[in-house]
């Protein structure tokens, strides 16, 4: 938000907002016909998971729409109360299942903060690398899925093809493709296997190539642009009120990235990279920011790989971990947005209460606001561009 004052923010954002207000007004004034309630979900291809959207339609125009979640609520906040700290990471892995490793990090950091330990530098670097890899794995699937939501079938296969390389990397380092469970309080479970760095560099090249392919297959496509430009505009102040985070916030012109803007025991501030923002705040901006972020993430990984310090990957921590009494909040810039844990400890082997602040919950809470007055196909566009993972909404 530093350099973007209202003049620069782009008239497009404001104009489109006025247009949506006009659509709102039109709905109210024009001839009152009997509306139709359309249930999108819980089982629907566009909700990748079990989100249900109840939409009141006038023709194909949405009068109001409201998401109804909870079809996948697993009660993780309750479950953490009966689990020990090492066991909790197996749970939080499954919140945003496409970027699992990134979910572990803030929780482990919170526990480390309460215990007053810090992971050795090598562990911090490897953590950051794996964090960015999970971002690449996560967002590359978004880029492919975006195509499916908008009716193009090929991108998703290209995404699955190239994401596989990243998953292989994560698996060969951590042992788990989807649920690495590799982070430990005080460091990492293990060091990297031999040859991993060279392989990762190759894969990062492939991923950049994938980004180029998606850019020319999808982002340059006139149909794609006409479907996303000016659709679902979220102005900056609304985005902040709803607590949108990640690419959704940056696409509304807020220059805020937790990786850069907060001190954390990770290696992001050791390398130079760029935070991408977009002034428009529409669906295209959100997708575009994500595409750029994927590219940037591969560059971050490349730089980090060159400078991994040598040393241990585990600090000295007791075998049975008891976390001293206290409260800690740690959040990181996850693939989906700001993911944070508010951990309350009572000096026990398990947390007393964990509030999981997941990105998608806030991101999707704007849906009733954003869907007023749009057409049915735009529901899908807006949902796709807001990008949620069901596990991340329901927890």
């Amino acid at each position, binding site marked *: *938000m*530093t*350099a973007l004052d209202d003049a620069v923010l782009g008239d497009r954002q404001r104009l489109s907002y006025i247009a949506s207000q006009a659509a709102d007004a039109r709905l109210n004034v024009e001839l009152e016909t009997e509306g139709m309630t359309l249930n999108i979900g819980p089982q629907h291809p566009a909700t990748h998971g079990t989100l249900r959207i109840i939409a009141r339609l006038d023709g194909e125009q949405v009068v109001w729409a409201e998401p*109804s*979640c*909870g079809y996948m*609520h697993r*009660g993780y*906040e*309750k*479950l953490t*109360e*009966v*689990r020990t700290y090492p066991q909790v990471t197996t749970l939080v892995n499954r919140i945003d299942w496409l970027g699992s490793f990134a979910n572990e990090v803030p929780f482990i950091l919170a526990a480390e*903060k309460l215990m007053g330990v810090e992971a050795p530098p090598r562990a911090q670097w490897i953590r950051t690398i794996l964090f960015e890899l999970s971002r690449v794995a996560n967002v590359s699937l978004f880029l492919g899925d975006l195509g499916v939501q908008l009716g193009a079938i090929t991108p998703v296969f290209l995404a699955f093809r190239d994401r596989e390389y990243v998953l292989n990397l994560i698996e060969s380092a951590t042992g788990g493709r989807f649920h690495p469970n590799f982070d430990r309080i005080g460091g990492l479970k293990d060091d990297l296997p031999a040859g991993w760095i060279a392989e990762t560099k190759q894969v990062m090249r492939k991923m950049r190539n994938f980004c180029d392919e998606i850019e020319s297959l999808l982002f340059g496509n006139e149909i794609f642009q006409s479907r996303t430009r000016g659709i679902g505009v979220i102005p900056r*102040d*609304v985005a*902040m*009120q*709803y*607590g949108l985070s990640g690419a959704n916030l940056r696409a509304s012109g*807020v*220059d*805020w990235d937790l990786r*850069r*803007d*907060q*001190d*954390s025991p990770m290696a992001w*501030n050791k390398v*130079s*990279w*760029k*935070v991408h923002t977009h002034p428009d705040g529409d669906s295209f901006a959100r997708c575009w920011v994500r595409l750029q972020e994927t590219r940037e993430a591969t560059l971050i990984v490349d730089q980090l790989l060159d400078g991994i310090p040598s040393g241990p990957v585990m600090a000295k921590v007791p075998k049975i971990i008891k976390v001293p009494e*206290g*409260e*800690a*909040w740690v*959040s990181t810039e996850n693939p989906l947005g*700001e993911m*944070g844990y*508010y951990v*309350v400890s*009572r000096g026990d082997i*398990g947390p*007393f*209460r964990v*509030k999981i*602040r997941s990105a998608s*919950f*806030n991101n999707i*809470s*704007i849906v009733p*606001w954003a869907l007023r007055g749009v057409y049915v196909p735009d529901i899908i566009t807006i949902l796709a561009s807001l990008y949620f993972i069901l596990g991340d909404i*329901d927890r």
Partner: protein
Amino acid sequence: MGLRLSSPAEPPVDAARDAMVAEVRAVLGAAVLDSLVKPGDDAWIRVSTGAWRQTLQSLRTVLGFHYFCFLSAIDWMPSPFGRGEDDPTQPAPERDATIRPGYCGGDTRMQVFARVVNPVTHAAITVKADVPDDTMTVDSVADVYEGANWHEREAHEMFGISFAGHPDLRNMYLPSDFEGHPLRKDFPLLARMVKPWPGIVDVEPLPGGGEGDES
């Protein structure tokens, strides 16, 4: 848009956060019951129940905390069930049931807390408020931060806290006829109740006592 290097040594005092809390105290006055700054970490304030909505209103409009991070609640009563790892054949163990509040203190079992961020200075603050044990009601802040709407619905169904003035306190996750509030500590986690803990030692001793060295 350069990179910001982390400060090498942790400062013993956190001037920025102290100043921020002082500013908040100056604006809110007597509503702030307690505050805490952990240098280099975070800042907490606790306000009186009646001032909860006014506090967030002032934080947003006066102090520039435009970004809403989350709102939730916490039940400070220790769980009467432990981790569900008791041996059913043994008498139930004694458990400490005293309610101890966390940072910034508190007088009630339940507390609501919210975190808001100033997007310009990137300063953040966690605000807590007690929830009266008898009414279980605090004011809604859904009209201050629109994003609080869903968070309050979640806190309502999970903790049974009512938010006065909330437009629509329906359940988010649970069926509408669900009884109980799952995140309260006295709500048993059935998954851990229906099955005995497999970690209870099940080693049959030698017939007739037996002798020999344990190895």
